[in-house]
C-alpha cells in the first residue's frame, strides 16, 4: 500500500517542488495536496491529487478520516503581502487552521508533521547578534504587530511539539531567505525587481537558500529529522549590496528613510510589506549547527552565491 502524504499549501512553488522531489525519491507514495487558492499549473503526476478546499475543521477532518496520512507537510502559512488578505484571514489560517491540523494529525495517528515557519520570527533588530540559534527569543512582533500571527504560529507549534513529543514527531523549520526562479516570496520579488531600491545607509548581512535545497530539506525533515526546531540555511553570508551585484540588478541607492516613505507611497501598487524594510536595515541571520548535526557539512547543492546567480 502506498504511503500517503498530506501537503497543505500545494499551490505554492515550494510545495510543488517538494512534491516532485518526494515522487522522485520514493516510488510508493501518494500525495494529497490542498490549498485554499485555485489549483493551477499542477505537475501532471498520477501520484499527486490536488484540490482546492476551504481551510476549516470539517474539510480537514474529512481528509484525515478518508486517508491514513503517514506525514503532514504544512507549507501553507500565509505571508504578509497586503495581497494575501487582511489580518483576520491570516490569523484564521495561520493560527486556527494550524492548530486544527496539529490536533487532527495526532487524533488520526499521523507519524510526522513538518511545519514551515520562517526566520522572520526572530525579527530584524539592530542588536541581533549574527547566527541566531533556535532558542533565541522570537522578537519579530515587538515592533510590527502584523507579524504577530507568524510568531504566534511558530510558538504554538513548538509548544504543541514538546507537549506531544511522545505521541507524534513534529518538526519546525525556520529557513533563511528562500530564493529561486519559481518561488514568489517578497525577497525574491524584491531582488528580481529590475531597479531595486537599495539602502545607501545600511548594508545588512543576508543568508539565502535555493528553493530546490529548501524543498530537499523539507523531504529530509520528513525522513531524517527528529522532533525539534531547526534553522535551515547554508554557511555563507552575503551583504545585501553584494547580493544585488551578483544578480546584476540596477541599484538605486536611496537613504532608508526615503525607501520607507517610497514603500508607504507605493503600497497600493507595489504591495511591499513595510516590516520587510527592517530586514534590509538590520541582520537576522541563523546558526545552522543543529541542522549540521543531522546532515553533516556540505548539506546544500547551491551556495548562496550560486542561488543568487540563478536568479539572473
Amino acid at each position, binding site marked *: 500500500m502506498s504511503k500517503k502524504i498530506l501537503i497543505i499549501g500545494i499551490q505554492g512553488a515550494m510545495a510543488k517542488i517538494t512534491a516532485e522531489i518526494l515522487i522522485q525519491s520514493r516510488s510508493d507514495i501518494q500525495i494529497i495536496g490542498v490549498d485554499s487558492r485555485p489549483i493551477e499549473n499542477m505537475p501532471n503526476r498520477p501520484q499527486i491529487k490536488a484540490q482546492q478546499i476551504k481551510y476549516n475543521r470539517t474539510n480537514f477532518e474529512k481528509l484525515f478520516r478518508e486517508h491514513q496520512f503517514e506525514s503532514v507537510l504544512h507549507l501553507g502559512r500565509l505571508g504578509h503581502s497586503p495581497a494575501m488578505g487582511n489580518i483576520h484571514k491570516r490569523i484564521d489560517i495561520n493560527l486556527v487552521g494550524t492548530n486544527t491540523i496539529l490536533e487532527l494529525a495526532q487524533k488520526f495517528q499521523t507519524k510526522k508533521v513538518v511545519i514551515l515557519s520562517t526566520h522572520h520570527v526572530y525579527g530584524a533588530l539592530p*542588536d541581533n*547578534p549574527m*547566527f541566531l540559534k533556535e532558542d533565541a527569543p522570537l522578537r519579530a512582533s515587538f515592533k510590527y504587530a502584523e507579524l504577530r500571527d507568524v510568531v504566534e504560529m511558530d510558538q504554538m507549534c513548538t509548544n504543541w511539539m514538546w507537549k506531544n513529543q511522545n505521541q507524534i514527531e513534529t518538526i519546525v523549520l525556520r529557513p533563511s531567505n528562500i530564493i529561486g526562479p519559481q518561488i514568489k516570496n517578497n525577497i525574491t520579488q524584491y531582488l528580481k525587481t529590475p531597479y531595486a531600491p537599495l539602502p545607501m*545607509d*545600511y*548594508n545588512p*548581512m543576508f543568508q539565502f537558500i535555493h528553493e530546490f535545497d529548501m524543498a530537499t530539506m523539507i523531504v529530509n525533515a520528513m525522513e531524517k529529522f527528529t522532533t525539534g526546531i531547526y534553522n535551515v540555511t547554508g554557511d555563507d*553570508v552575503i551583504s545585501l549590496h553584494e547580493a544585488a551585484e551578483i544578480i546584476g540588478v540596477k541599484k538605486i541607492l536611496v537613504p532608508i*528613510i526615503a525607501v520607507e516613505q517610497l514603500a508607504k507611497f507605493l503600497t497600493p501598487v507595489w504591495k511591499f510589506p513595510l516590516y520587510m524594510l527592517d530586514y534590509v536595515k538590520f541582520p537576522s541571520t541563523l546558526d545552522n549547527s543543529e541542522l549540521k548535526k543531522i546532515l553533516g557539512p556540505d548539506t546544500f547543492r547551491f551556495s548562496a552565491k550560486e542561488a543568487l546567480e540563478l536568479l539572473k
Partner: protein
Amino acid sequence: MAGFIRKFTKLEKALKERYSKERDPWGLEPSRAINDLKVIWPFYKYYFDVRIHDKDRVKEGSPYMVVSNHTGQIPIDGLLICTAFATELDHPRILRPLVERFLTSLPFLGRWSSESGAVLGDRVNCMNLLKRGESVLIFPEGVKGIAKESKDHYKLQRFTKGFLRMALASKVEILPIAVVGAEEFFPYVMHFKKIAKFLSLPALPLSLNVFPLPSPVDIYIGEPYMLPAELSAEALDEELEPHIMALEKQIEQMTQVGLLKRRTMTQRLNI
C-alpha cells in the same frame, strides 16, 4: 611615503590571505577597511602622533581579546588602537571592536563601522568571532569609561565581568592595553546624563572644543594576562573578582607609567 605604501601593501596581503577564501559574516569589507585606514592614517600619524609600545608582545596568528581603558569622550581611542594593529604590527590584523547597539542602529555610521570591522557587542558575536580566530577589542569599562568629566580623567572605572567569562570559555589570551593622551582631546567636559537618557543616547558630553585637540597618544601593550586553566567560565563572581582586579591594576599601572612619560601638547607644538 614609501613607509605608507609598504604598510598598506603588507596589510592588503594579510587581509587577502585571511578573507579571500571565506567572506566575513559580520560584514567586514577588507578593501573598504583599507581605504578607510588610508584616510585615518595621516591623522593617526601626524595629528595624534601615535606611538605604539611593546608591539612585539602580539604574536603572529594568535587571536586575542584586547582589553583597553576607554578615554576621550568619543571612541577615537578605539579607532587609534585598530589603526595601530592594522598598520604597525609585523603581522597586521583588523581588530574587531565590539560596539554599542546605538552605533549599529545608526544610518551610514552603522554601515561604515561594520564594513570597517566593528561588530555589535554581544556575547554570541564575541564567542563566534573568537572561534573564527578573530581578535576582538573590548572596553570593559563601557560608556562609563569614556564619558567622564574632566575631574575624573584617567580614573579607571570598574570592569564588567562578561568579557572574562568569554575569555575563559574561548581560552583566548587577554591582551591588556593602556591608551595615554586621549583624555586631552576634550580637556573640559560636562555631562548631561538626564538629557542623554531622555534622548536615548549612551552619553551627551559637552566640551569647549568640537574637534579633538592634537594631543599626542601613546598605546602601551601589556603582557598577556594568563587566566588559570582550572577556572570555569561559569565560576562564581567572587572567583572572577581577583582576576578583574588584577587586570584593572595592570592597566592602571601601565596608564600611570604612561602618564609620567606623557608628551604634552605644548611640547609637541614647540610652544
